[in-house]
């Protein structure tokens, strides 16, 4: 096997492409899988399941205190009203960032991640550098992302070692009073829901159509 780097973009089929093709052909010929069903699964993950779902949830939590309370109490139940394509099983847990506490999500043992609300995890989340250091040196990891927090802020790392899944509810950016949920959602980044980033500041996005001349 040649594994000098992760991704092969050349015109020749790589070992792994051949290997995966062989698996798919055998499984199809034996009737265990339907390639057309695989197409649809891939399409769902490429188009419909992603962090835009989590961003809608965060925006609603920012704008609706009753929803936020329900989200923090039982996130699986609270997000049912969003009718997401992919439902979370029983155990989504939303953890709230505050000025006193910053939350970060990791899976040191594999790659557990709240697919249903954030989509598939990025490569770095599944990588050895993140998995090894997030629990022992979270501030160092945050520095890799250019994120600095006051020394007195508690850093709380949640290692996803069971079938519970976590998402971070980041703090609402300043100067967003009166924004619609859609506008708020545009500020929510994937990394802010993992805890390795912040939402975009209000002045970095397209201003609202009214009263935005300043």
């Amino acid at each position, binding site marked *: 096997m040649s*594994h000098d780097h*992760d*991704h092969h973009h050349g015109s020749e089929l790589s070992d792994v*492409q051949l*290997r*995966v*093709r062989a*698996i*798919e*052909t*055998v*499984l199809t010929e*034996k009737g*265990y*899988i*339907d390639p057309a*069903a*695989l*197409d649809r*699964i*891939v399409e769902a*993950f*490429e188009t419909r*399941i992603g962090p835009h779902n989590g961003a809608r949830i965060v925006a609603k939590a920012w704008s609706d205190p009753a929803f936020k309370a329900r989200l923090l109490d039982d996130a699986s139940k609270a997000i049912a009203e969003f009718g997401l394509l*992919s*439902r979370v*099983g*029983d*155990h989504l*847990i939303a953890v709230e960032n505050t000025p006193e506490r910053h939350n970060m999500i990791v899976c*040191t*043992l*594999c790659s557990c991640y709240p697919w249903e609300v954030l*989509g*598939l995890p990025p*490569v*770095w989340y599944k*990588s*050895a*550098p993140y*998995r*090894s250091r997030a*629990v*022992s*040196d*979270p*501030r160092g990891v945050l520095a890799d*992302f250019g994120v600095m927090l006051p020394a*007195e*802020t*508690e850093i709380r*790392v*949640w*290692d996803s*070692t*069971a*079938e*519970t*899944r976590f998402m971070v509810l980041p703090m609402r950016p300043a100067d967003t009073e009166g924004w619609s949920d859609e506008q708020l959602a545009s500020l929510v980044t994937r990394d802010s829901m993992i805890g*390795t980033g912040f939402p975009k500041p209000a002045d970095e996005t397209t201003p609202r159509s009214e009263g935005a001349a300043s």
Partner: protein
Amino acid sequence: MNGVHDMGGMHGFGRVEPEADEPVFHAPWEGRVLAMQRAMTYTGAWNIDMSRDAQEHLPPKVYLAVSYYERWALGLEQNLLGKGLVTADELAAGHALHPAKPVRRTLTQTDISPALTRGKYERPATAPARFRIGDRVRARNIHPATHTRLPRYVRGHVGTVERIEGHHVFPDSVVMGAGESPQWLYTVVFDGRELWGAGSDPSVKVSVEAFEPYLESV
């Protein structure tokens, strides 16, 4: 097992390197691997814990060298071979050479929703939870050679029960073929200095999701 997959606290892997505008899949084969894993899990041939177990049993140098979805592909092969659903000569030939073994069900394009829905792992309680919120507990100093979800970096250390998550399927039992053997599941939070020493960052707290058999009273 104390494998290389259990990475919490290890040194030497370098910086985290985020990729700007990362695509969902970096090559079409990655999506095929993910979808095949979902479709085969749906057949009931194995479950999520067995998928993890297969990857953890890859040789360490392979686990660390290959890309994420390549690891999935290798684990998928191991599970297919282990369950007798395919044979090595079929994988080498790239074609079916032997009759299929029956599977419970197959996923079809008319309804892929089961492949997109996470399973439920909570089971009715069969005994009261041994620990309560606020209890001080020690992660047991155990080193099973088989699949476990208690990471090494907390073993032997004392933390506090913060949440009781319910009564859940116990991965350690499932991979042994010993049934779901559901156990109470807790969020146990550790002070960073308890885990990493007195000189470490005092602002850090780390929690794990710990099944009751992983814990003992202090």
